[in-house]
Every structure is written in structure tokens, then in C-alpha cells.
């Protein structure tokens, strides 16, 4: 997997961790998939690199 130049700091990662968990709970079990896919598309658009995104997809599929 490609390592981007900028990564999250530990406090930054912790903030995202909490924000994601809270948002999944707020979307509810029926809508959490939809919420996560919307989020993935928003992030993918900003990454603007199908290869990097595909690498992320493969990494996320591992060890499910």
C-alpha cells in the first residue's frame, strides 16, 4: 500500500476514530452502510487516484 506524504498524527487519528464511531451510531444500523459508502466516495474524490483507492480497498478487504 502506498504511504502518503502526510499521515494523521496520533491525536488526529483518535479524533477521527471517535468521530467515525459516533457518526455510525448516529446513522443507525439501517443506514450505516450507506453512510460509510458516501464517506468513502467523498474521500476517494479528494484522493483523486483510482490506484491508491484500489489499494485501500484491497487493504480493507484483508482479514475481515
Amino acid at each position: 500500500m502506498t504511504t502518503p506524504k502526510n499521515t494523521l498524527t496520533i491525536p488526529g487519528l483518535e479524533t477521527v476514530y471517535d468521530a467515525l464511531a459516533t457518526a455510525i451510531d448516529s446513522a443507525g444500523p439501517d443506514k450505516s452502510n450507506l453512510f460509510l459508502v458516501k464517506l468513502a466516495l467523498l474521500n476517494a474524490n479528494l484522493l483523486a487516484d483510482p490506484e491508491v483507492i484500489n489499494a485501500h480497498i484491497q487493504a480493507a478487504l484483508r482479514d475481515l
Partner: protein
Amino acid sequence: MHQPSTQARPSIYYNYQVFKPWLPSANPLQKRQKVVIAGSGPAGMVAALELARLGVHSVVLESELQVSQGSRAIVFTRRSMEILQQVGVADRMTENGLPWRFGNSYYRGQRVFRMEAPHDPDDRFFPMINIQQQYMEEYLLDACQTNPLIDFRWGNKVIKVEQQPDFAQMTVDTPEGTYLLESDWLVAADGGRSEIRTAMNLPMEGASYEGFFVIADIRIDLPLPTERLAYFDPEWNPGNTILMHREPHGIWRVDYQLPPGETPEDALKPESLKARIDAQLAMIGHAGTPWEMDWNSVYSARTLTLPDYVQGRVIFTGDAAHLLPIFGVRGANTAFQDAQSLAWHLAFVVKGLAHEKLLANHSAERVGAAREIIDEAGKSTRFMTPPSSGFRLLRDAVLSLSLTEEFVRPLYHWRTSRPHEYSHSMLNSTGDDNALFTAGPAHGAPPQNIRLSANDFLLDHLGGGFDLLYFTEGTAIPVPLQQVVATSRSLGVPLKVIAVGASQPVDGADLTMADSNGHFRTRYGVQASGAAYLLRPDQHICARWLTLDATRLQAALKTALPQ
């Protein structure tokens, strides 16, 4: 005994004419034909008309006694109009059809995407025109019936085909029984449910999508323009899609997806149709507007093609050759291109001007087109009718994001039927200057139309054979080129020479186009006199030169007509 219905089909706007069947007892003994066409839909009739234009006689066998039931294909593309112009019916289409160029997608009451199809000032025809298929068939039929090279036989149904090494023998059933008909070639243009294809047991490649759509034509007065309307995931039909199109005579096409598990029989019950159409009208703010049903039907999306359209002496064309999804107006619009391609390839083989391998090229080009369409239409189909939970989740995420996020909106784009470019055709010249051009239509592309004056366009003058566009400011086509043209013509090859860029008629040209402002040259990427384009009888480009000489013209014609 074949007994087609003699009752005029019901319609609230179209007056069906029932024709008399062609009976073998009333006609002389049948000699072997050059070409027999089974089926008189858009593909069959365009093939017959284009064959006739190239001097080839055909027999058209139509099992029914009238044109087809219901509006069926209603949206025709610019390229279809250009092809219909070639066979002489574009004026009637223009006179009676509704041209348009905008498409709208709605989600949760908001217009989330508006498509604007480009309309070039050099184009004679609009990107799209809406008219019911019965009218289009009627115009083609009128052209067929006045053509001395077309023997049109109503009420004649092919029930058996036997392949011989150099001809096909058909058993044709009529209201007074069967007769035998032999033909060098049989064109199977007998539609999506082709019985000829089924009887020959030919497998198709591709995919079928689950889920049914209802098509209903209603007469209603709606104050809406002629534009494509698509509604995604409405409250009355969750998760599904509804399409609406205006047709002539106050008719609207309403096309909606059925919930999973519902059968076509249930969906077509009058109370079911009424409840859903009323719900759709209410959603768009026209609840209670009176309407009347004309015709309805059910379809499912399929992306299937035969891998080879030439099977012995039988050639498949149009829906008989492939089944394409309705999204993107793929059916009749593809059929016109198939039929135009088939007609010229077959005409040149029948007339002995090229080897039979020209037919293999036809198949390769059109199977290639079908596969390209399947790839493109598959994307639209996966958006309109998601085939799995993953595809559904992504589609729903896009719908949701589209309310606020611009970047996903192009995913609504409805990939419309467009002409295939035969970029790798074996008919393309190998020794020309194709790669050196920086503008203009390239190898295999359809021509760019040019507006010559207010009501005069380049495509008005093309077709019926090869066309050589020769760009010159001089007074004559160079003699060596004229000699190559004369030699080809003496062998029977129809070849027209059009001089572009001179103010007076050019010697050796059949026609001269002045191009006083250089606009034509610019669009064709021509920088100096002596450049040329060679167009096949379907107007696709097979060679182009910055400077044409006799040897290279000769070579291009040889490549385009393999011996």
C-alpha cells in the same frame, strides 16, 4: 397455415392499415433470389432500401399484415436521422417528430443533473427526435413499396431454413399454405425473439439483468417540454426508477421499474397500471389530470450478442443479432447502423465487387459495436437497476450525495447511443496519412456534417457508393486520379468525386463545394490543396491523405474492397 391477424391493431392515435397478404398462387414460380430479408422492422427495411440504392434487388418477408404494435422505439439519434436521410425518409421524420436535447434527473424532488446534448451548427439534425415507431415504419414502408427493387410480401413467415453450401432454402408459410424460396443470402431481421436464431440454436454471449420495467403510453396534456425526465427512488416506488418522454400527438411514455418479485402479468393489470401512473403524476405535481391508456408492455434489460452475425448463408441484423438495454436508446438506433453496414457490404459481395470476406468484416465491425454498446450500456444498466446489494449501496450513496455534491452528478449521465468508430477495420487504408491529421474524422469514424448554406449540408450529397472528397482550389482533379476513378467505375464500383474549395465547377468532379471561408477545410484538418478523404458507402472514413496521389488512391480502394 400461417394466419396473421386481419384486425387493425388498437390505438388511440395511430390508424393501422391492414395490407393484403402476398400469395404464391397469385404469383409466378419463384426463381432463386439474391437476397431475402426476413422481417420488416427498422433493420429489415433500412437494409432493403440501402441494398436497392446500391442496385441489389431483395424480397422482404413480413409475417404480419400491418406495422408493429405500440410505439416501441420512440427516441432516434442524430446518426439514425443521417442514415434515414440516406434512405429518403428523414424529411417525414423531421416534419412529424419532436426534436430535443436536454435530459433531467430528479431525486427527492430536486433536479440533481441536467444533461445538454451538444448541437453543432454544422449538424442538420438534432441530437434526438421523438416519434412513435409506427410512423417511422410507415415512412420506411412507403419508401419500400415505391421501390422497384424491393418485393414486399405481407403475411409471409419463414418457418424453416435449410443451409446449402451456396444458398439458403426457406419454407415460407402464408395464409394459403407454404412455398419454397431459395436465396443466395438470407438476412434475419426478425427481431429480438428471432425464430430463425432460435431454430439455428445459436448461443448469445453477455448478461441478462433481473427486474422488469413497464412501458406505458398514455394520452395526457402535460405542460412540460420535450426533454428526458428520470426520477430515482421516488416515495411511491422506493429504490426504483421512472422515465418519462413526450411523444407526438399528446402521448407520453411512462416507463417504470417493478419491485422485485412482481410478475409482468400482475404489473399489466389495469388497476395496477392506473395506481402507479396516478402516483407518478401526483409526484410531479399533476395529480388528477385526466389520461387515457394507449399501449403497454414489459421488458427486462439484457446485454447479449451473437459472436458472429454471418452464419453460413444467413446474416443476422438488428435485434435478431443482439439484445441491448433500452437505457441509452440502443435498439432501433443500433439496428439502423447494423442495417446500413450490412447493406453495403452485402451489395458489394452480391455484385461481385468484393470477396465474401467483406461480410466477415461487416460481422467483425458490428459485433465490435455491439460489445462496445454492451460495455457502455452495462454501466447505465447497473446504475438504473443495480444487480447486487453492493451495486445498490453505491447507487444509493450516489443519489444521496448528489443532493449536495457536484462531483457525483455526472454518474447520472445517460450514455446515449452513438455511432461506433471502426478504428481498426481491415478496410482502413494502411498507406495513407491518417495519423498525420490533427483534426477531422479519423479512420473508421462517421463523417462530420458540414453546413454548406442555409438548407444544404454535406451529408445531403453523400452515399450510394464510395465518396471521394478532394480538396482543391484548382480547376481540375489531377488526370492520374481521374484515371483511377474511371478504372474503378468501369469495374462497376460506384464512386463519386466531390471537389471542395473551388469557386467554379472542377473538371473531373461530380460536384463542387466552394468552401469560400475555409470552414470545411478547417473541420477536416486540411491545410493545403491536394488533400482528400475516402468515405465508404456507409460514409465512414476509410482513408485520408494530406496529398493524394493515384497510387495511394488505388491502394485504398483495393484495401476497402478485398478480392
